[in-house]
C-alpha cells in the first residue's frame, strides 16, 4: 500500500468520518485541518531514512478503522490495569482513557487546590496552549492521521512553582474488541517554570489486531522537573506507531523512561529538544521482543541551547525471530556551546533467527561540544554463563540472571519505585515464559557440549 491517503481502500479514514467525531469546536477544527493535510499526504516508505529497517511498507490502513464511540466498560484489559495501578502505589491523579476517549479523571484535591489541572477535551473551552507545537518537527502522515482521528486529548498542566507530590497516572486502553480498531491517544503535559511532577503512562490492549498511534507532547518551563514513565504492554496483534516530543527549558530536567514490551510491530519515536540554557534530558528505555515481534526505536537528542546535557541509554533483547531497530541522532545545533550528549544502545540477540540493528548518528554544527556514543549487538557473554555454571547454576537459570542483570541497571533508574518493581517482575516473567521459553533458545550463543 502506498501513495496518497484518500485512496478508496482507506475510506474508513475519510474526512467525513473525522468530522463526525465529538468534541469542542477547537478540536473539531483541528481534526478538519489535519484531515485535509492528510488527504494530500503520502504514507512513509521504508526507503526513507527515518523508516529504514521499519515495517511501514506492510501497513495496510484499509484493515483498520477509527474507534468513533467510547468502548463499553469495563475494558477487557481492566485486570491488567488494576495490577499496574496497585504496583504504582500512591498517586496524585488518575486518567483512564479507552479507545482514545478520556473516560475518567480523578485528581487529588491536594493537587487541584494548587492549580494543577488534568482534563480531557470536554473540560477545555479553548484550544490548549502548545497543543500540536511540539510534534510539528516530526509531523508526517501518521501524526496527521492521529490528529485527524484522535477523539480526545489529555491535558495535564502544573502551574509555576507547584510540586505534585505523587505520580499522575494516565492509562490508555484500546478498549475495543473489534478486529482492526484504530486508536489515537493524545497527551499534552505542560509544566510551568519551576514546577515538579511525575507522569506515568500505561498502554494496553487485548490480542485483537489494532493500530495505535499515540502522541505525547511535553513542554517544560524554565527550571521545571518532570519524570515521565511509559509502559507499553500492547497485545500481540497491535501495530504501534508512537511519537513523543519534549521541549526542555532553561535549567529544566526531564527524565524519561520507556518500557516497550508488547505489540507485533511497535515503533517509538522519542525526541527531546533542549531549547533553554543548561537544560537536561535523560532518556532511558528497555525493549523486549520475542515470537515475531519487532521493536523499533528512533531517538533524537536535539541540543539547541548552550550547556545542555543529555544522556540516552536504550537496551533491548530479541529472541525467536524477533527484530529490533535502534537509530538515534545526536544533533548539536549551532550555538549549543559546551553541550554534552551521550548515547548508548546495547542489544542482546538471544537466538539465531533474531536480529537487531543499531545505528547511531551524529550531526554536529557547533565546535565546542562533547558527544559520545556506544552501540553493541551480540549474544549473551558466554564467559559470564560459564562463570555462573562453575558455581553450579544451571544454564537456563544463569541466562535469566544475566539477562535480568543486563536490564537491571536501567530498571533501577525507573522514576517510580513501584513501576521499577513492576517492570522487573514483568521482564522476569517474559524471560521465564517468553523470550527464553523455547528450549535451547541460546544454543547458538557459544555453549558447546
Amino acid at each position: 500500500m502506498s501513495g496518497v491517503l484518500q485512496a478508496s481502500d482507506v475510506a474508513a479514514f475519510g474526512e467525513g468520518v473525522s468530522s463526525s467525531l465529538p468534541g469542542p469546536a477547537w478540536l473539531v477544527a483541528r481534526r478538519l485541518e489535519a484531515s485535509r493535510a492528510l488527504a494530500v499526504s503520502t504514507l512513509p516508505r521504508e526507503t526513507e531514512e527515518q523508516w529504514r529497517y521499519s515495517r511501514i511498507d506492510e501497513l495496510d490502513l484499509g484493515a483498520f478503522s477509527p474507534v468513533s464511540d467510547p468502548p463499553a466498560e469495563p475494558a477487557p484489559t481492566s485486570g491488567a490495569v488494576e495490577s499496574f495501578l496497585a504496583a504504582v502505589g500512591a498517586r496524585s491523579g488518575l486518567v483512564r482513557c479507552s479507545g482514545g476517549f478520556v473516560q475518567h479523571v480523578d485528581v487529588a484535591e491536594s493537587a487541584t487546590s494548587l492549580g494543577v489541572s488534568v482534563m480531557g477535551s470536554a473540560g477545555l473551552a479553548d484550544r490548549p496552549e502548545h497543543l500540536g507545537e511540539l510534534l510539528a518537527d516530526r509531523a508526517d502522515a501518521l501524526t496527521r492521521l492521529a490528529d485527524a482521528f484522535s477523539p480526545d486529548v489529555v491535558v495535564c498542566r502544573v502551574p509555576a512553582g507547584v510540586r505534585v507530590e505523587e505520580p499522575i497516572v494516565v492509562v490508555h486502553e484500546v478498549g475495543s474488541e473489534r478486529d482492526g480498531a484504530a486508536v489515537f491517544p493524545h497527551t499534552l503535559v505542560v509544566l510551568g517554570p519551576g514546577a515538579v511532577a511525575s507522569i506515568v503512562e500505561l498502554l494496553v490492549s487485548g490480542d485483537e489486531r489494532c493500530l495505535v498511534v499515540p502522541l505525547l507532547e511535553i513542554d517544560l518551563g524554565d527550571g521545571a522537573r518532570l519524570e515521565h514513565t511509559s509502559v507499553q504492554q500492547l497485545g500481540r496483534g497491535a501495530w504501534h506507531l508512537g511519537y513523543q516530543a519534549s521541549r526542555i527549558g532553561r535549567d529544566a530536567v526531564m527524565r524519561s523512561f520507556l518500557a516497550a514490551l508488547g505489540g507485533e510491530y511497535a515503533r517509538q519515536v522519542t525526541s527531546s529538544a533542549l531549547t533553554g540554557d543548561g537544560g537536561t534530558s535523560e532518556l532511558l528505555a528497555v525493549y523486549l521482543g520475542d515470537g515475531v515481534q519487532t521493536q523499533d526505536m528512533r531517538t533524537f537528542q536535539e541540543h539547541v541551547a548552550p550547556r545542555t546535557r543529555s544522556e540516552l541509554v536504550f537496551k533491548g533483547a530479541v529472541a525467536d525471530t524477533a527484530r529490533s531497530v535502534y537509530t538515534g541522532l545526536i544533533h548539536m545545533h549551532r550555538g549549543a556551546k559546551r553541550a554534552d550528549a551521550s548515547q548508548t544502545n546495547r542489544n542482546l540477540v538471544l537466538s539465531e533467527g533474531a536480529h537487531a540493528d543499531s545505528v547511531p548518528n551524529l550531526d554536529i554544527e557547533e565546535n565546542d561540544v562533547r558527544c559520545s556514543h556506544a552501540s553493541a549487538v551480540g549474544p549473551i557473554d558466554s564467559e559470564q554463563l560459564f562463570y555462573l555454571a562453575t558455581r553450579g547454576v544451571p544454564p537456563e537459570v544463569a541466562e535469566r540472571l544475566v539477562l535480568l542483570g543486563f536490564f537491571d541497571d536501567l530498571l533501577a533508574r525507573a522514576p517510580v519505585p513501584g513501576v521499577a518493581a513492576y517492570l522487573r517482575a514483568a521482564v522476569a516473567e517474559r524471560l521465564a515464559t517468553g523470550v527464553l521459553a523455547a528450549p535451547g533458545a541460546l544454543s547458538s550463543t557459544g555453549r558447546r557440549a
Partner: protein
Amino acid sequence: MTAARAHRGASTLTIAGLRAAVGGKEILHGVDLELRSGEVHAVMGPNGAGKSTLSHVLMGHPGYEVLGGSVTLDGVELLGLATFERAQAGLFLAPQDPVEVPGVPISDVLRAALVAAGRDGEAMPDTLARRMSDEAGEIGLAPAFLVRALNVDASGGEKKRIETLQLAILAPRFAVLDELDSGLDVDALRAVARRVERATVPGSPGEPGLGVLAITHYRRLLDELRPDMVHVLVKGKIVASGGPDLADELERTGYAGYAEPEVAVAAIGPDPFGGLFS
C-alpha cells in the same frame, strides 16, 4: 547443613591421562593427579605449561577440547557432565580473572546455586545473608560488595576475596584455585589463604575437609597455603611430584631444568634408565 552433606565421607579426585587441546593444538599431553579430601596440592609450572588449560578443562569450559583421559570424583566421571553438574558434584573453580556479571548480585548467584543443589535451607535469604556477612568479615571483604553486582568495579584483590567467599559458602569437595595469588597484596593473600586452609580442616565426622588444587606460577601463595604435595607441570605433563620442598627447590632453580620432560625426571631422582644414556 543438609543430610546429604553430613553423610559424605572422604572423597577422591582422580585425573588420569588427561589430554586436551585448544584451537586444535594439543596442550595437555596426559596429566595424572590424585587428590583427596583435606589435601592441598600445588601445580606449578612456567608460562605456557598448560596450567590454565588444566583448570578450564577440569571445569568443562566450552573452548577446550578433551582428547582423552578421565577425571573422576569418587568414581563418577566428570568429563561427560556439563559445567554446572560438575559444580553440583562438588568441584569448584576460582578462575584467575573472575568475569564481571553486570546487574547480578552475589547473593542471587549463591541462592541460585544452592537451590539448584537442593540446599534450599541454606538459600533462605536471612540465612544466606548472615553467612555472607560473617564470611565477608573473616575474609576482609567490604560489605558493599555483598549487594553490588558480581565482580563489577572490584579490584583484583577484591575479586579473589569474593571468590573465596563463594567458595566458603558453596563448600565444594574440591576447589581448583587458578592463580589465586595474582593481583593480591600480602594482607589479602593471607586472609584468603587462611580461609581456604580452614576449609581444608575436616569438620564433624562425615565432613571431610576441602581438597585444594592450587595452580600457581609463583611460590608466594605456598608460603601462606602450605601444600601437602607439589606437582610440576611442563609442556602439558606432570614432570615431577614431591613434598613442599619441591617448591623451595623450584624457587632456587626455576623451571629451566624442566625444559624437557626427560631432563626434568632426571633432575629430581634417579635416572629411570639407570644411567644407560648418560
